[in-house]
């Protein structure tokens, strides 16, 4: 058990990551060079993450949550807006500072097997980030690898070092992925659907592990999921995303009990719990499909499917963020 050690050496206020009006648009080209519009994967998203908190980004496919994650990780370049990490704007970093930033943010991916190179042993996989960041001493690398494996409860570490990914179970593979995300002692971890490809009985274990790691090192955890049921127990705040925008932000219990945006309400209504009475009920879900990110509908993006859409308003103008309850924000004209 590691003692409670905070890895972040950045001094400063509580706010670790500030995102303002972030846009990540991809340009489409016809025949390789003719401009043909943009895919607006992330469209004017703003939020703030505090040190040590766990925030869940909830949304369906096409909501932009994965693109948002990748932009925060530096894998996509923002088309507009700002990402400010520990007081520094990401766009203003030079190469060396960019590399340093990558060490401060760890990435846990959805597919545990795909996230690990199949031809490398666990020891080698964990050594790679250290080598890339210039930790040349073998002994030091060994030490940190053992430390990381202990954190994720893959012990005895020596047993696991020579193993290859295909020799591990799904849960163990994901632990290796988490170990790799931790090995550079980041301040923040972005986890994109970390348990959706694991078995039900293993999911809780891994989520517990992430929780323990977060609290023992005061890490910020941004995790992306479509499983609202897990969010309740493992996140403090929740951001609901729809069609490349954040439509609701709130503390998690508050949102589960009193959702303010019609989309969040629909999501919660669609969540199944193991209840035999379900077989007799038909769930009410909004018809239609999520909109295209190339040419989204005018006004509020959810209005074509929304049971409470206000004509002449919701289909004309994009709603700003309202605060119907303290600390609980929803971008919906119903709360004007």
């Amino acid at each position: 058990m590691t003692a409670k050690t905070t890895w972040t050496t950045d001094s400063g206020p509580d706010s670790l990551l500030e995102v303002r009006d972030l846009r990540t648009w991809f340009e489409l080209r016809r025949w390789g060079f003719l401009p043909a519009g943009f895919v607006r994967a992330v469209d004017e998203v703003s939020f703030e993450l505090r040190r040590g908190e766990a925030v869940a980004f909830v949304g369906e496919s096409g909501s932009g949550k994965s693109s948002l994650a990748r932009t925060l990780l530096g894998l996509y370049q923002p088309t507009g807006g700002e990402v400010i990490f520990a007081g520094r704007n990401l766009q203003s970093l030079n190469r060396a500072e960019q590399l340093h930033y990558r060490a401060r943010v760890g990435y846990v991916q959805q597919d545990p097997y795909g996230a690990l190179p199949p031809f490398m042993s666990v020891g080698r996989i964990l050594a790679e980030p250290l080598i890339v960041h210039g930790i040349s001493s073998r002994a030091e690398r060994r030490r940190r690898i053992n430390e990381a494996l202990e954190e994720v409860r893959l012990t005895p570490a020596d047993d696991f070092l020579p193993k290859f990914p295909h020799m591990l179970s799904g849960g163990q593979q994901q632990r290796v992925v988490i170990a790799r995300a931790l090995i550079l002692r980041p301040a923040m971890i972005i986890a994109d659907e970390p348990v959706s490809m694991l078995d039900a009985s293993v999911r809780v274990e891994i989520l517990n592990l992430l929780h323990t790691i977060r609290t023992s090192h005061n890490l910020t955890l941004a995790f992306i999921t479509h499983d609202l049921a897990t969010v309740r127990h493992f996140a403090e705040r929740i951001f609901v995303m729809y069609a490349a925008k954040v439509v609701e932000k709130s503390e998690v219990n508050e949102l589960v009990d009193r959702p303010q945006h019609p989309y969040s309400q629909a999501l919660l209504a669609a969540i199944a719990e193991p209840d035999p009475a379900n077989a007799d009920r038909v769930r009410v879900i909004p018809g239609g499909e999520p909109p295209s990110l190339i040419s989204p509908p005018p006004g509020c993006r959810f209005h074509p499917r929304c049971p409470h859409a206000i004509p002449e308003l919701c289909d004309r103008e994009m709603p700003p963020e309202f605060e119907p309850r303290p600390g609980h924000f929803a971008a919906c004209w119903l709360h004007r």
Partner: protein
Amino acid sequence: MAAGNLLRVDDFCLFYRTSGGIGRAVDGVSFELERHQAMVVLGESGCGKSSLGRGLLRLLPRNVETCTGRIFLDGIEISAFTDERFRSEVQWVRIAMVMQAAMNALNPVVRVGEQVAEPLLVHRGWSRARALARAAEVFSLVGISADFLRRYPFELSGGMRQRAVLAMALITEPDLVILDEPTSALDVLTQAGIMNVLKRIKRELGTSFILITHDVATSSEIADRVALMYAGQFVELAGAADFFLRPAHPYAKLLLASIPRLHQEKRPEFITGQPPSLLSLPAGCRFAPRCPSRFGRCAENPGLMTLLDGRQVRCWLYAEGLQQ
């Protein structure tokens, strides 16, 4: 055998030959399914449930070592049919299947309508026009507009592709549809939509379903009965209400406790350890290594015992038929 039973499976076994030994994917499974009933085979990955589904329809890979057991459809022993007879009279005629990730297995260069209509062309020899017309009807049943008949698979979203594949299974009006993880790769709203479709089909067409899944919550959406599978065997076979509200087998109890629930304050628990490999199964009860209630007798493999309330449990704790 009770009258009105659509399907009866008697001691079905399916073993694979692999470079690591014999994999006992399905090890003596028996059950009965009535008409208009939906049974869920619930289990985690590696428990053999997919093999069970495919074995019932004789969609077997090449390295099958043993495939034994008797299967009766409406009293007729279809397991005794030759492969040709099975293919022409049972497969897709009386029993159809929607396989795992089927929505990704649609032929990308053929229009969706043609693919959905194909079983009618093959099994009933209908003309193309007639088959496409029927496809349009089935499309409306599963909730897709008939416009999409002329589209290609890549033009449909994941949820719509899954509905299309479901239409393909339903188009020959089978008595039984086996679905293997029909909603696992889909979003929450889409999942709910698919489950709504299944409920409607069950109600309007009376089709029976065997739904194979690892998702406990989804299974409760449609199950009349639940069969919990572990390491190749059924460990509990009960009605839906009994299973979800009063699980009997220790594994069932732990599994239900490990599901995170939205409206529950308590943090979900998890089950330690992993399921055994089908290549090297332990002697004795296969869940014993992970079971919190194991005791001496568990060194012997229990058979399925019938309890007073009609359900079946594979656990020595219920040996005398006492506990409920």
